[in-house]
């Protein structure tokens, strides 16, 4: 179980996260939705410590961190217990697919290279890239790059994988292959926190959908309940925009 309490983040004087409380069960699949600029990415980046939160605390994989006094060790520990899938894939351009996935095992976990490459190969096979082990990112399609990105996140064997709009930068033709890899991960009960605009994915896969607005969690619940009977007007408004008027007409 992962616990976030009172997570607060300012950029300059502007509050971006206003004390987020969040509990995540082991094996839970959570989808975060909401208008752009409401702090969804910042929430994920704070959990992974790519941003430094200003207040609050987190307990993750038995490690407790107070955000107002974070040591270097805390930062490394939180990063090593989580994994991040980026919107723009962010693969290492100087490493081929296999090396991208194995990098963490070698550098962070200290695995011998042969063992790490064998494991990386298995992961690439699982995301359907059997024939692309030695391809560099520049030679891969967006969909293939993102699947390498997901395999890299899987290599961490982490307590939580954070997905920040993993299909938003993709040409439409590649979206499904990436979503299906994510569904497969979800079936294996990998704990995931996914920011996405793919509402069908949320319906099909999520245990819980969180709606964020203005740096707050406005409403959350099982996808059926949230999509068919949103309580907060902001949620209704947002769903009407993304799903069309008929979909969220609970009035």
């Amino acid at each position, binding site marked *: 179980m992962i616990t976030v309490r009172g997570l607060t983040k300012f950029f300059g004087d502007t509050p971006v996260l206003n004390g987020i409380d969040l509990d995540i069960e082991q094996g839970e699949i959570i989808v975060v939705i909401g208008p752009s600029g409401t702090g969804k990415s910042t929430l994920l980046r704070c959990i*992974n*410590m*790519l941003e430094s939160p200003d207040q609050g605390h987190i307990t993750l994989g038995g490690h407790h961190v107070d955000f107002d006094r974070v040591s270097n060790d805390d930062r*490394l520990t939180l*990063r*090593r217990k*989580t*994994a*991040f899938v*980026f919107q*723009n894939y*962010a*693969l*290492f*351009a*100087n490493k081929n697919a296999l090396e991208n996935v194995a*990098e*963490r095992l070698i*550098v*962070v976990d200290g695995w011998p290279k042969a063992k790490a490459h064998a494991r990386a190969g298995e992961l690439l096979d699982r995301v359907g890239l059997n024939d692309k082990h030695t*391809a*560099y*990112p*520049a*030679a891969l399609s967006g969909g293939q790059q993102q699947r390498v990105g997901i395999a*890299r996140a899987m290599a*961490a064997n982490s307590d939580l994988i954070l997905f920040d709009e993993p299909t938003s930068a993709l040409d439409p033709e590649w979206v499904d292959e990436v979503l299906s890899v994510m569904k497969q991960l979800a079936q294996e009960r990998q704990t995931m926190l996914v920011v996405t605009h793919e509402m069908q994915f949320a319906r099909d896969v999520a245990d819980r959908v969180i709606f964020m607005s203005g740096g707050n969690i406005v409403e959350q619940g099982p996808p059926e309940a949230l999509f068919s009977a949103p309580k907060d007007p902001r949620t209704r408004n947002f769903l009407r925009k993304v799903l069309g008027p008929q979909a969220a007409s609970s009035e």
Partner: protein
Amino acid sequence: MQILDFGYMAELFPYLLGKLPITLGMASAGMLCALVLASGLAIVRVVQPPLINGAAKLFISFFRGTPLLVQLFLFYYGLPQLIESLVKIDGVTATILGLTLHFSAYMAESIRAAIVGIDRSQTEAALSIGMTQSQLMRRIVLPQATRIAVPTLMNYFIDMIKSTSLAFTLGVTELMGATQKEASSSFLYFEAFLTVAVIYWVVVELLSRIQKLMERKLNKAYQR
């Protein structure tokens, strides 16, 4: 009346070639030291640790902002006056020192530009998997930055070879110094300096070819 004394040039040519190792030696030593120093300066300029960053900026500004000849005189004639133990600093050492400091200032800027040219998202990805700053530098940033910087650094090496000719003002008998001596005893100035010009030209031309090959190879890396 003949225009050029080709016989003299043919005689001078092998003699001057014998001085080429001194020229190339000074340039290579200067290049190696400058690479090390420039990488350090570049990392300081990227990471910007408070005090050292100011010092690095000042260093770069000074050595880019003053002529190499002035710097060479400063080290060869000036330093020994300031520090007794340097009285015996010889021309070759002073030249290598001057080339190192002067060119490292320029090279630092191109290495810095190459480092910041690596897109930020790769840095974040490396941090997100739990790499430390130094692992990130060694395994992700520097290998890619090197590729970007190599062509420019080769230009500086070529520039440095030509700049070694200033060493003759410090009494070093390298290519230029040897030519100067020969010319003033034979009075065949045009022939002598034309011969040395051809030697520099051929060396630089060869290096440019190598540079092109390297560039082609580097451009192909990471593409398949």
